[in-house]
């Protein structure tokens, strides 16, 4: 059985080309060279178009504050400066507070999503119990229900639980929205691990949880990383939920702060500080994505596309 299953356990990193093989037919070397040059010409223009807003924000953030706010803008920084970052760090509660809040939220969300999705995915893959299909269906139904429509009653529920205006309450909400993808992915992954491996462990005296922890969880580790990666990206970037559930400026996360720079400045808007904020908000995501890229693709292959 195996090919299909191993593929889902080990991340498939390579997306290999199909339509390209068509080109093999052209024998003429000069024409082929011209085609290659044209290909790279178009591709580079497009790649630059996609990357330039990111690069532009980074370049602007290192201009002096005056230059960053200059009208019309300069193309490249005349001199490099950290002034915008200094201005940003003093915004309202101070960047430290916002970073700490965002890290805390991410930590809760990532740990919560991983624990809950791994346990539930395992339970769904390996056990039979009453209400199983109903629960699995309800979990997937979260996808169907628009996020924004359910925030209103969620606000009331969190109030009853005493979790309004807390990062942990917000983390629970974000974990809940990770469930459909995470549980589905983990269930698929566990289903592709042969039961015999665990049965051997059980015979050797492992508990059910021990079999999960010492055997299966190690085999599906790539999928666990995928769940963590998705949870990180969501919680780091989430804007609407913190905006609604947090009403205390000392608890705000980076995205909320970022938008506030625009609206909260009583005097002149500081575009330099805003773009420094954009850089601070996006760099961790870019770095983590580039480092864990293959797990992202693995998640799409094992999770989303097998439904």
């Amino acid at each position: 059985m195996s090919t299909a299953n191993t593929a889902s356990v080990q991340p498939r990193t390579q997306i290999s080309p199909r339509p390209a093989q068509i080109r093999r037919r052209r024998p003429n070397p000069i024409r082929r060279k011209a085609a290659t040059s044209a290909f790279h010409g178009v591709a580079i223009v497009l790649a630059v178009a996609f990357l330039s807003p990111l690069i532009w924000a980074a370049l602007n953030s290192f201009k002096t504050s005056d230059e960053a706010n200059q009208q019309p803008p300069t193309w490249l920084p005349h001199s490099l400066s950290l002034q915008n970052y200094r201005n940003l760090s003093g915004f309202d509660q101070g960047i430290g507070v916002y970073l700490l809040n965002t890290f805390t939220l991410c930590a809760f969300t990532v740990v919560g999503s991983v624990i809950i999705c791994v346990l539930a995915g395992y339970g769904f893959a390996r056990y039979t119990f009453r209400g199983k299909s109903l629960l699995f269906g309800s979990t997937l139904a979260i996808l169907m229900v628009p996020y924004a429509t359910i925030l209103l009653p969620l606000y009331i529920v969190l109030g009853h639980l005493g979790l309004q205006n807390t990062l942990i309450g917000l983390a629970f909400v974000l974990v809940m929205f990770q469930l459909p993808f995470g549980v589905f992915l983990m269930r698929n992954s566990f289903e592709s691990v042969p039961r015999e491996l665990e049965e051997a462990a059980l015979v050797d005296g492992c508990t059910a949880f021990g079999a999960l922890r010492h055997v299966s969880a190690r085999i599906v580790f790539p999928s666990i990383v995928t769940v963590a990666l998705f949870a990180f990206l969501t919680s780091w970037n989430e804007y609407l939920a913190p905006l609604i559930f947090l009403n205390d400026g000392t608890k705000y996360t980076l995205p909320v702060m970022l938008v506030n720079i625009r609206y909260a400045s009583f005097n002149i808007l500081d575009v330099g500080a805003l773009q420094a904020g954009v850089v601070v908000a996006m760099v961790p995501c870019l770095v983590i994505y580039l480092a864990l890229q293959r797990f992202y693709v693995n998640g799409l292959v094992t999770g989303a596309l097998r439904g």
Partner: protein
Amino acid sequence: MSLLMRTPPVDPPAASETGTGRRRVGTAARRPAVGFAFVAPAAILVAALFLVPLGILIYMSFTDWPLIGSPHVNGLDNYRALGSDDQFLGAIKFTLIYTAITTVVLFAIAFALVAISGSSRRGATFYRTAFFLPFVVGTAAASSMWWVNSNDQLGIFNKVLNAVGITNQPADLLGTPDRALVTVIALVVWKFVGFQVIVLLVGLQAIPTEWYEAARMDGASTWQRLRYITLPALRPTLALLTILSVTGSLLAFDQFFVLTHGGPDNSTVTVVLALYNKAFQSFRLGNAAAEAVVILIVLVLVNAIQLRLFREREN
């Protein structure tokens, strides 16, 4: 046998394997209590933060729910009010237009980019990564960036448009309803098309190479291979992407909230933005709940119709 009670397996090989494997009395699948313990945390979360709020939402939609004080049931009043709610009706129209344009543009550009990043030439991986990177940047950061860039005095977009000769004087790219719509769509395409590209590439990868080789031996042209092999094999992927794109556009909020704030002159108010305004700006909670229920029903219907359409064409 307990196997028969399992939910319809998504992965037949794995499920059938459990049947052939040796089973010992007392192993995993026989103890429902243990199984339930594993899913309990998820069950609690789904119940408390999804099913209960969903119930409250439906109840709210039939009440006059004041910010302070106790709610009272008012039957279908909230739903009737929606029929004459100009902001909501305008938002529906705008959201439909936005959804149609975005979905078409996203697919058109995604196909072009797939041709590039699916190539076997060197550098294809780099191009693919370049197209995808905007996707991992958060909406708040991306919209803030876009907001600065669209400004008539400070923005780079004007400078570029001037430099290549499309415009000759600074224009506020969020200044008129049409420009604001185009600017938001540009942002959405820039941010989301990379995701479509990756999903399409994953779908293409799943098509067996032998099919193409066989077709080529039979003398099929490039176009014929695309038409009779690639497109039919990609159908599930295309269905998934259409559903994601339509649903995502119908529920668009962040980019409008941050970039245009619904302006200029409330010309870019989407359904969810109207809902947000009603609930959290004017605190008409009962009305907002009715609006949410309507959106929810429409979405479920739209997805059901799309799924059916794609299935029918498959047969």
